[in-house]
């Protein structure tokens, strides 16, 4: 066959092969594929192996949003195939580089089309475009695809309308069209004609699948008769072809090139990137998600949006030059968009005001790839989520994920009033686990929190997000109630502590063999960048954890709100955007 089969589109499955919550096992040109349809209708065509230990994903679990490997439970997101969760590292967000290989998918004529590296569009067949395509039962054949195609040209069948009625009348079958991967046959009898297009899927050098589509759907009463007619005829043809192939020398099986997964892949943090806005998104929808809260649905321009996990946030680069962080509220694997909620801050320095007043539907925004410094464990039978005001946003993604996974949770939502509760459509779905605490004073809030946190099961974790005073109260009450630090997870919107940047000290970079001075008024982060050391960062106020660095020696002067008290006491990590040194010198692991 003349054109390179690796650049062609081929059918790899038919639409009925992909019922909900099923994983289809396919193969094309020697490469095995795991094919599954998510609840949003998207068809995923992936390399059939888990990146962890190479186990086939075709035996995995399709839960509608993620595909879970049966071996060690790694989960991969619908659409991107990015890893969303590693049970052996429940407290960590998997690096974005852990992403399975995907192949394109197009549904046409009731078939799923894909390819190694296909160019253009899947073939358009005029006779099927004009008609009402009707898929036959697909038939795997143990014979070289070329031979199957050749013999298919001799296939004989009767038109739909005449089956079994006019025995004895001559059937005339002619080849209307033939190309590298398909043959089109027309069968006529007594004025009735049916055209059948047979696509041959090259499974391997010695194996193929015949995927037949008729140009017309028979009436309900004739459907099974037509299907049986072709199935019987094609099985006869298959048996003949296989007998012929058995007399030929067996071709060497094709060997698909499978990229090696590097050992470090799962270990290495993302490449330092600074505050880059590498993505462009369009505002697909903007709506009033609650009083003073605007919801934004951001859709990709071009490629799929990168994988994210519950708790992830993005930097939004605003038209006025400001950069703000917003949590993603939708759960991974659901839809192709990012959703954020933006509260109009009365004392806005221009961030929330710009999003509320300037940005409109259809506008293009620059955003960073998602980062996750607030990862959700999925190994707890009961999780307590505590939201204050707009702090609901990351917890919404968490609640939806826990609900989908069948894990218990309570979502406590502290808000001024019902009108201030955001994303009512999502809250409705979470209703049985949602507890609203409305219009409480700070004292009443503290009492409510004390009640919520009074009893805890052994496996429980608390996730809390909201205004700083409420987070302080929650953390204090949790500590008093006996929750260990590592079970209380929090995310501040911003760091409201007064930063003291008067100290001056030295930093030694152990891996770069550099010693640099940090003067009063400078930050470690700025000094690093001035000296050509690339560092990722996001909020640059000690709230998000992106610019964290390990400390090997010296005593940090923590001024962030990202680390918890015991982490601060350990002194082995530092947020380079705000924190400094109490000792004369810090040795950093960069």
């Amino acid at each position: 066959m003349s054109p390179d089969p690796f650049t062609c589109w081929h059918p790899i499955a038919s639409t009925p092969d992909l019922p909900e919550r099923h994983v289809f096992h396919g193969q094309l040109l020697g490469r095995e594929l795991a094919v599954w349809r998510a609840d949003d209708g998207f068809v995923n065509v992936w390399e059939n192996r888990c990146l962890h230990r190479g186990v086939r994903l075709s035996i995995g679990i399709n839960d509608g949003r993620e595909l879970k490997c049966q071996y060690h439970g790694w989960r991969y997101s619908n659409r991107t195939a990015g890893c969303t969760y590693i049970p052996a590292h429940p407290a960590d967000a998997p690096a974005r580089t852990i992403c399975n290989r995907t192949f394109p998918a197009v549904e046409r004529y009731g078939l799923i089309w894909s390819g190694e590296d296909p160019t253009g569009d899947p073939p358009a067949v005029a006779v099927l475009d004009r008609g009402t395509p009707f898929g036959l039962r697909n038939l795997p054949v143990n014979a070289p695809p070329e031979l199957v195609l050749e013999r298919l040209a001799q296939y004989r069948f009767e038109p739909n309308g005449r089956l079994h009625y006019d025995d004895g009348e001559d059937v005339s079958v002619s080849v209307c069209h033939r190309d590298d991967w398909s043959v089109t046959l027309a069968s006529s009898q007594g004025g009735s004609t049916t055209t059948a297009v047979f696509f041959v899927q090259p499974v391997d050098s010695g194996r193929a699948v015949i995927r037949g589509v008729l140009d017309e759907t028979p009436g309900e009463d004739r459907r099974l008769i037509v299907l049986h007619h072709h199935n019987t005829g094609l099985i006869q043809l298959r048996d003949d072809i296989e007998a012929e192939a058995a007399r030929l020398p067996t071709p060497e099986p094709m060997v698909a090139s499978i990229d090696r997964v590097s050992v470090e892949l799962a270990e290495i943090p993302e490449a330092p990137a600074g505050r880059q806005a590498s993505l462009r998104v369009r505002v697909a929808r903007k709506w009033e998600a609650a009083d003073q809260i605007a919801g934004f649905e951001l859709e990709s321009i071009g490629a799929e949006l990168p994988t994210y996990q519950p708790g992830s946030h993005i930097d939004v680069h605003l038209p006025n030059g400001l950069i703000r962080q917003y949590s993603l509220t939708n759960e991974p694997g659901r839809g192709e968009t990012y959703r954020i909620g933006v509260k109009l801050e009365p004392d806005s320095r221009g961030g929330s005001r710009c999003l509320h007043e300037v940005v409109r539907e259809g506008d293009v925004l620059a955003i960073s790839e998602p980062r996750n410094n607030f990862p959700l464990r999925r190994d707890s039978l009961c999780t307590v989520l505590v939201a204050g005001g707009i702090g609901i946003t990351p917890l919404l993604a968490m609640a939806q994920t826990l609900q989908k996974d069948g894990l218990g949770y309570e979502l406590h939502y502290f808000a001024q009033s019902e009108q201030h509760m955001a994303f009512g459509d999502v809250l409705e779905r979470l209703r049985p686990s949602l507890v609203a605490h409305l219009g409480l004073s700070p004292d009443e809030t503290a009492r409510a929190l004390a009640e919520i946190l009074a009893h805890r099961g052994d496996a429980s974790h608390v996730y809390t997000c909201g205004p700083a005073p409420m987070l302080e109260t929650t953390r204090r009450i949790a500590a008093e109630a006996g929750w260990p630090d590592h079970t209380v997870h929090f995310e501040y919107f911003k760091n409201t502590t007064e930063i003291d940047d008067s100290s001056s000290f030295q930093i030694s970079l152990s891996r770069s063999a550099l010693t640099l001075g940090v003067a009063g008024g400078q930050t470690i982060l700025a000094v690093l960048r001035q000296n050509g050391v690339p560092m990722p960062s996001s909020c640059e106020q000690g709230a998000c954890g992106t610019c964290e660095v390990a400390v090997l020696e010296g005593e940090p002067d923590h001024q962030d709100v990202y680390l918890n008290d015991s982490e601060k006491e350990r002194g082995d990590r530092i947020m380079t955007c705000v924190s400094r040194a109490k000792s004369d010198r810090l040795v950093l692991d960069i």
Partner: protein
Amino acid sequence: MIKLYDYVLSVNCYKQRLMMSILDVSYQSIPVDFYPGWEHKSKEFKKINPLGHIPVIDDDGYVLRDAHAILVYLAAKYDPTGRWYPVSDSELIGETAQWMLFAEGTTNTASAARLHVNLGYDFDIGACRESAHRLFRVLDDHLWFREQQGRNWVCSGEHPTVADIAIFPDVILSEEGGISRLDYPALRRWTDRVKRIGGFTTMPGIFPAGPARRGRSGNAGPIPD
């Protein structure tokens, strides 16, 4: 209580555990050192089953051998609804018997290949695999047309029967015997459906299915009780 002479890696013993789990029948498992001890071939065990096979059940003194016979007994006795072994429907019971015999075929080919690979049994592995593929082709064809008729199971009724329980384990463990199910998509979908039967239980090598989408039925959907 029923005693089941049992071995954890035996497909035929698993068939009984699966049936009893679905029918919510409690039983006592009596481990037989099948491998490497060959206890089922011992003099003592041959007093229980002169053929030297497991499984065997002892239901309060009533002793029965042969996996597919035991399934018939369990369903007839412990399924008050009469759906798992539908004796009241002559056509359906005929089909059930037909597919129970088919299950003898899958056991003697697909599961024999697995015994050869895993436990060192001396079978003609090539012949086992070839015959298993021939049976799987027939079953895939059959199940594909069942789906076209809006049916989910091996027999033509709306409810699964002992035939599904007899065939499923041979199919789902076939890859251990080197028999791929890549070419049998309808067969693969049926295994998902069996895994979603209430009371389904696993054994080494068999993984549970994920949850079906709530409020939906269809090919991969749950079955009504």
